[in-house]
């Protein structure tokens, strides 16, 4: 027995459970009920059965949004699982000035979406910094439509996500790396293992649980991407709205006085079911590894 009184764990977890119920589960339950109605933000709604779900299955925009999410996931998952780990390894070594670099690499994480949007909008538009450089170096004679082509816009948003995520996941990896005993490394070094082998046989197994956690976080946030696409397309989702993400659709339908809360709630629930997939898969992997 880890504790004497049966209620000790509940006492410790109590505050968290209250918050869980009031600020997470209750609004979510609300969403489930709403998804079967045609509710508006003002003035009730009528029970409409599965209408919202039927509508979702014939919604072209939702199909586009799901495709975007999958692409997002496929590109972001490897990039953001690996690059921050490499970055963490780079800044882990105590070189003079290293704390400065660590702090600096973290700045995009702390910047608010508005600042980031402003800057990237400037950099990527037709007369922006990047197109300017491309033209001056002769790599492109006409501006590259980073923000107006369906696929380029998606890639730009992915680049932005990666840029913002580097520092965030780097810190998580740093704290994990710290737990990989230095002695193990040293022992391996003495045994004549090269840097690559040490990485593969000591570092990687040591940070595997963290990698799993990080990839869960990345999968969920890729499927639920919002601000990058929203900001780069100024809320419109590009030509024809083909660069909308599911969360953008939910926002579009739920915001405002005439918000279609019922349909937005149904979309929220579908998104929930979809994100559940990778989560279950990854927790299973985690359990196997452990």
């Amino acid at each position, binding site marked *: 027995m880890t504790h004497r009184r049966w209620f000790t764990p509940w006492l410790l977890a109590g505050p968290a459970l209250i918050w869980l119920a009031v600020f997470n589960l209750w609004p979510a339950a609300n969403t489930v009920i709403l998804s079967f109605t045609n509710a508006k933000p003002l003035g009730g709604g009528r029970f409409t059965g599965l209408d919202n779900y039927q509508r979702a299955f014939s919604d072209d925009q939702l199909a586009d949004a799901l495709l975007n999410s999958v692409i997002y996931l496929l590109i972001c998952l490897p990039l953001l699982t690996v690059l921050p780990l490499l970055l963490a390894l780079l800044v882990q070594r105590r*070189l003079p000035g290293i*704390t400065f670099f660590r702090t*600096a690499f973290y*700045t995009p994480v702390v910047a*608010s979406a508005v600042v980031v949007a402003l800057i990237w909008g400037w950099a990527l538009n037709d007369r922006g910094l990047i197109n300017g450089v491309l033209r001056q170096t002769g790599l492109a004679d006409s501006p590259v439509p980073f923000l107006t082509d369906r696929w380029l816009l998606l890639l730009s948003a992915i680049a932005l996500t990666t840029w913002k995520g580097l520092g965030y996941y780097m810190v998580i990896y740093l*704290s994990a790396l*710290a737990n990989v005993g*230095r002695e193990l490394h040293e022992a391996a070094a*003495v045994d004549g293992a090269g840097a690559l082998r040490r990485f593969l046989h000591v570092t990687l197994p040591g940070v595997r649980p963290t990698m799993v956690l990080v990839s869960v976080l990345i999968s969920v946030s890729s499927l639920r991407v919002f601000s990058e696409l929203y900001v780069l397309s100024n809320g419109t989702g590009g030509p024809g709205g083909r660069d909308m993400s599911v969360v953008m659709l939910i926002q579009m339908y739920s915001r405002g006085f005439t918000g279609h809360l019922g349909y937005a709630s149904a979309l929220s629930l579908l998104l929930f079911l979809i994100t559940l997939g990778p989560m279950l898969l990854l927790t299973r992997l985690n359990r196997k590894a452990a």
Partner: protein
Amino acid sequence: MRRSRGSNTPRSRSFNTPSPAETALRYLLLLFVLLLVVGPFLWQLSTSLKGPTEDVWSATPHFLPDHPTVDNYLKVADTIPVWTYAANSLVVAGIAIFGNVVGCTLAGYALAKLRFRGVRLVFGLLLATLVLPGEATVVSQYVTVRSLGLADTLTGVALPGALSMLNVLLMRTAFAAVPPELEQAALVDGANVRQRLWHIGLPNVRGMLSVIVIFTFIGAWDDFLWPLIVLNDPQKYTLTVGLQYLNGTFSANPRLIAAGTMIAFLPIVVVFAVCQRFFFKGVEEGAVKG
């Protein structure tokens, strides 16, 4: 825990000292990433220092202001009560940090180290919150806060974020990484839950705690929509909301907006730069734990 002192032996020195070529390569990489990551912010900083006669619109702007001036900052401080807003933001961040540090530590410990009936259910619910549909729930959150009598208060702003489920999960992960032998030994010695949490758990998760402090601070500091909805009295506005007054007065001077965003952004950088020693030390603390 004592074993790590051994890193002063001659054997480990050879492991610790990289070759000059490697050091040079490392710095080169560090500088490259630095340019990618902070370049855009310096650009924004430079815009905020430009005088009214300088062209801030051109595609290839001068990086250094020709006539650097702090007028834009003074103008911002003249226009809105920056200090009041910043103090309000600090209060909100303070409450949120307190709630997260205490609540998530307790709950994380219970979930990781105490065996009790229902632990899997609670853990499952917590995981589910990561993907729970929260997009269409702002209005119902507001109603909850209002029915608690906390509308138009800074406490009301801080409340929903004062105990984040993600942070509970992070603390759980951190406690789970503490070697079980330590717990076992203390348990054999007859230490109760409070003693084990205080003397064995906490010293080993300081890294994760500092991560949570920073993340919570940033989240509270940058949030816009939620404080706007909760607060009515402009005297109680937080900084991000208050800065909108710069944007909302019929005109949009990019220099003033740049100065405003810098005013919101620099405190985060300063807080982070001051805390980073503790932060990264905390992140790395595992190294002395063995």
